């Protein structure tokens, strides 16, 4: 299935977010940190892109949101992976791995 160029970046961001909360709920700041550290400091997400994406995923039903008390001793919104989100994560991960495999084959020096 083809992926349009303008779709690539938002789709990857969604995937990264879903992956970050697979192990458990995190708040927005922690998700940002998680993406930074787990990608080996390759991908940085800015707040301006992160929060709209979080809300969008929440609207789609892939993330659920709850208020909780964070380590800063303040109210924070925690995002958690929902069942539908878990399914979406698996789907997108598979798609992504296929993409990577295909590109790796393409780019191998012949």
């Amino acid at each position, binding site marked *: 299935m083809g992926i349009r160029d303008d779709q690539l970046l938002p789709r990857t961001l969604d995937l990264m977010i879903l992956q970050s909360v697979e192990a458990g709920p995190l708040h927005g*700041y*922690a998700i940002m940190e998680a993406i930074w550290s787990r990608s080996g400091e390759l991908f940085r997400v800015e707040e*301006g892109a992160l*929060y*709209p994406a979080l*809300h969008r995923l929440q609207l789609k039903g892939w993330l659920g949101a709850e208020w909780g008390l964070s380590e*800063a001793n303040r109210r*924070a919104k925690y995002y958690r992976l929902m069942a539908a989100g878990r399914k979406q994560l698996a789907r997108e991960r598979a798609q992504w791995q296929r993409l990577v495999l295909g590109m790796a084959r393409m780019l191998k020096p012949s």
Partner: protein
Amino acid sequence: MNLFLRLRGLFTRRDLEADLETELAHHLEMKRRDLEREGLTPDAARSASHRAVGNTTRWKEQTREIWSFRYLESLFSDASYAFRMLRKDRIFAVVGLTTLALGIGATTAIFSLVNGLFLRPLPVERPLELVRLVLTNLPPTERQWVNGRAVRPKERMTIPFPMYEALGRRQQVFAGMFGSGGGGSMHIELNGVPMRLRVSVVTGSFFPLMGVQPQRGRLLEDSDDVPGGPPSGWPAVISDSMWTRMFSRSPQTVGASISIERAPFAIAGIAPPSFKGTDPGTETDIWIPLSSLESMFPWKWRTDRSFGMMLPRARLKTGITMEQAAQHLAAIAPAVLEDAKDPAMPAPDQKHFLAMKIEPRDLRGTNDRGRLVRRGAVDLACRSRGRFIDRRNKPDQPVPG
């Protein structure tokens, strides 16, 4: 399904704003702590974190937009819920609607009465008989410029003088026609002092047909509106406000000389207080006869068939209604337009020209009446039973029906 209901019940607009603020505040706080841990002083950390997070307005906007789609969905579902509930309880529906109808009707009636009596008084005789005439069904190439953008207008307020005359010859429903040739800001000299004032150039029938009475002296009449002017010279009528401002209400004003666009006039009289003329949107200072234009400008407006210079008005004959006048005007319009057309106009343009319509309108202006009634109706509607809005507070109940 339950998840969606919970999400829907979770946020109202106020809550969303507060939530976004809280989320942002938390983010800033976390950033600040990190920076402090990296060694910055508390103050430096605070300002650095603000700078790092940057312009928050945009992401708040985007987030708000995401949620706004959801508001629309819940609006539709609320509306369908309301209809379902109404269908179940017919009696309530009937009572509710009747109450609304009575309330709206009462409000309209009161408003009409008050509007007629107080809101737009014209110090003229039987103001309800006065109408202004407009051209509609305009040629498709006609354009107006509104706020710098070209638009296709629905009606024209001005007509060329030959058309005004043609209409005057053929109409049967008016006690008389009058009008202003526009006018505008003109160069005045009073006792050698130059200034610019708002002048209205009107037909001789203007004051007589409106039934205005002068405060002092006399007002313009038909014998003033002749080429070359009356034997005593061109008369002018000034407004009450101008009399106060320029003459300090001196009794010597009537008979004083005044020069308008370098043509000599004599002040013949003063209009009553609160009479501001009928030109849309402006207060007139001086009224002068239409024919005096010839003394000021060389332009042949009497025979100019293309320039819309007249703002035509009329007084309905006693007993004639607006509807009857409208029908009559529709009937005579083709003949009037045929008389008034410019023979030099190319044939396709002529066809559009002859297809125009002439319609009467209320002289007192635009749809204030409609707007106020609508506002009142909305107010009444909002005061109806809280039953329709209960559901907001019980998001977890299954949708009834």
